[in-house]
């Protein structure tokens, strides 16, 4: 008798459970997608507001592993739904190696800039390597490259407290995007136009000698930027990075930024290159990421909180909220990157 009762009770519970299960499950199907992401976009993907929009409006959770833009193309992408490198060269390389992806789209844009400390910026101004217009610092790439190639020491430009010669610290151009793009920019500068196969043979040895001086290089832009801020002027006097990095840092760490803003200077190379963050969908699940990330609200947050100039947000309508001085309203001097074949040759030469 007793066992029968128990049996009935179990049945009842199972039925109730099943009903509850169906009722509670009756909501948007949540998809989790996974991919490789360049370090500089992690702050954005970790943004709770953005995550909420992706979740509520698109039923999407984006998980990621950090990887350099070039590295991720050759890395094993089994089980990944997307790649999110930081330039179009990576896409071109992807196409060369794997054929046309399911879908790809530029999601964000940000220019390559240089970061330095006020004492270094001052010295560069004095030497005419940098200039200042309407509160915005610009660095003359030709003069800077000449100083690097000549082996000018920091002491020569009036900074005896710094050891060694003038260099621009970058991430490893064979692994990571900001370094890769800076190498492209240097290549352009060295040939006085846009580097291509016709002038490569002249440029490559010079490029190699510039990068050889750097020795070990970080493989992620965000690590390099973190080190720039923390290790101080001595360790990283001048680095290449993205405009978005500082803007995001200032929004995320307003108190710290307040303390250090006098000392940190952003310089726009003349000309510069755009880093176009292109999203490459590898499978159907990955495709959903494109629409979600192009959502108007997501794009707005990407600029306001993470400093990415976006498609929808072409010109920064409001840049005062960053509290960062010297953001260029618009960039008129922009050069195209060398094409993928040229960049590939550059990467090979620097490997």
């Amino acid at each position, binding site marked *: 008798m*007793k066992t029968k*009762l*128990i049996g009935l*009770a*179990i049945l009842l*519970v*199972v039925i109730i*459970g099943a009903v*509850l*299960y169906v009722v*509670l*499950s009756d*909501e948007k*199907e*949540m998809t989790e997608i996974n991919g*490789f992401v360049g370090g500089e976009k*992690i702050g954005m993907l970790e943004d709770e507001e953005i995550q909420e929009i992706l979740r509520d409006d698109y039923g999407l*959770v984006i*998980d990621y*592993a*950090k*990887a350099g833009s070039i*590295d991720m193309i050759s*890395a094993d992408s089994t089980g990944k739904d997307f790649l999110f490198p930081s330039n179009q060269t990576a896409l071109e390389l992807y196409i060369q190696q794997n054929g046309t992806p399911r879908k790809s789209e530029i999601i964000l844009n940000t220019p390559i800039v240089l970061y330095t400390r006020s004492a270094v910026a001052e010295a560069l101004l004095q030497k005419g390597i940098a200039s200042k217009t309407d509160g915005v610092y610009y660095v003359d790439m030709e003069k800077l490259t000449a100083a690097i190639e000549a*082996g000018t020491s920091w002491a020569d430009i009036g900074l005896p*407290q*710094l*050891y*060694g*010669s003038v260099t621009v610290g970058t991430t490893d151009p064979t692994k990571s995007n900001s370094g890769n793009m800076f190498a492209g920019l240097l290549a352009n500068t060295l040939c006085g136009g846009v580097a291509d196969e016709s002038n490569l043979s002249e440029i490559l040895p010079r490029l190699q000698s510039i990068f*050889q*001086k*750097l*020795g*070990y*290089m*970080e*493989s*992620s832009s965000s*690590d390099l930027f*973190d*080190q720039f*801020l*923390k*290790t*101080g*002027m*001595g*360790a990283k*006097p001048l680095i290449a990075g993205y405009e978005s990095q500082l803007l995001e840092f200032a929004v995320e760490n307003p108190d*710290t930024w307040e*303390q*250090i803003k006098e000392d940190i200077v952003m310089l726009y190379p003349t000309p510069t290159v755009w880093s176009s963050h292109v999203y490459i969908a590898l499978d159907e699940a990955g495709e959903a990421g494109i629409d979600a990330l192009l959502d108007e609200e997501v794009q707005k947050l990407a600029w306001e909180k993470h400093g990415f100039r976006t498609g929808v947000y072409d010109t920064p309508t409001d840049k005062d909220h960053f509290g960062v001085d010297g953001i260029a309203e618009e960039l008129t001097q922009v050069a195209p990157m060398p094409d993928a074949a040229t960049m590939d040759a550059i990467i090979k030469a620097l490997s």
Partner: protein
Amino acid sequence: MKNKKKLIVLLLIIMTLAGLFAGCGDDSGDDNHDSDYDGEAVLRIISGSENSELEPILEEFTAKEGIRVEMTYQGSLDIMRLLGEEEIPYDAVWPASSLWLSTGDTQHRVKHAESISITPVVFGIRQSLAEELGFVGREVSVSDILSAIQEDKFSFCMTSATQSNSGASAYIGFLYALLGNPEMITAEDLQSPQLQGQVTELLSGVDRSSGSSDWLKDMFLEGDYDAMVNYECLIIKANEELEARGDETLHVVYPYDGLSLADSPLGYVDKGDDEKEKMFLKLQEYLLSEDVQNQIQRTGRRSGYTGISDENRDVFRSDWGLQPDRVLSPIKMPASDVLFECLNLYQTDFKKPSLTVYCLDYSGSMSGEGNEQLVSAMEQLLIQENARKNFLQASENEVNILIPFEGQVINAYTARGNGSELEALYDKVRDQEVGGGTDMYAAAVRGINMLKEYDLSQYTPAIILLTDGQSAGSISDFESAYQRLDAEVPVFSIMFGDADETQLEMLAQYTNARVFDGRENLTEAFRSVKGYN
């Protein structure tokens, strides 16, 4: 998320069912499906030894958040190697420098890496000696230091360049200086016979070595040495102790052309466990909070974005030579292929050759698994193909002595160099029969007596003793032999099985060495101890 809701429903069902059964069965006295067990919150971190000084801060975190932090200390190079392995049995890594993190993390499994604090690798030289050498109150170059060493004006201790970040950093600094400060060290530079001669001579001035920076400091405090290369924060720590006991403190010298920075990155090893990730981020946020950054600064580390605060200036004492406002302008590390070539050359050509005496326990209690573990651990050290993976390969001039023992010394074998003799030594290790009692002192005494045949100034000597039980004999037998040797030879021991820790500690203390625990992982213990000479 949907999955969570499903889980909740399932749990509800199970709990209701459990409740039903509990209600029906009136004999169920104690409910053993207690909810007490819900898995302890713990973060396992593999870290450079210098962070052991931060344990009180980590304990505060545990008290506050209920998340236990389990620290395992290893050299930065070991951490680098670990990152390349299939399985990483830790939740986070915390090497001394991001150099090893980026070099090791080829599979991109580390995320959220952020520098917790900065400390430069510097020379700490006895104050009076530093004054005598003219190193006080002026800028000093690596060459200045090298010429003083070459003129035999002082000797120093440093960690092994192939095991520990501080040693590697200092060594790279030496190479730059000896090459005349080129823009960058190249593979061709390293082939120069002149450089090779000079580095070898320089490293012959190394008094004692160590596999870990923190233990180098401890060893320094126990011994009588002129100088050490170590992290600024550990020199500060050493000085605090030296001053407290009324001894002469060290003067900090920042070689302007050979400085390196340890940026202490703490990174999460992503294995897809969201809960762990949250715990990790909590810890990182805690460590980077203003208050804790300030506490970290008080341990002599440079933390935060704005330099050393006014209230912490008393830690960075200028009378000890510290320069809190110095612009730390480090040398550039070579690219990884050249760096590894530097490290290989250090191990095989440049460093003082090791003279290692292995006293290994073959008593009856070692039979079976104990002996198997011992043989496979020795295989990692003696078979060069294995040793090379950990930068532990032998050099041409190295000497390895094997003394198997039980209640007495069984035999003694000597292998010179890194060739067939060494590999033959492994055969002896493997083929030796097990049985009898334990007298480690007899073996150690034999080792000491054999060392008398060598000019020890030409080697880095050490006795490595493995035992698994209470030893017969007494330390006094050892002490009298040791005194007759009249040289400092550390007796490192590896505790195994039921070894008596007090006996081993006494030996370690007497010879300024340390005890390694081989009970968890014997191979790991042998590898670590080998890194000390």
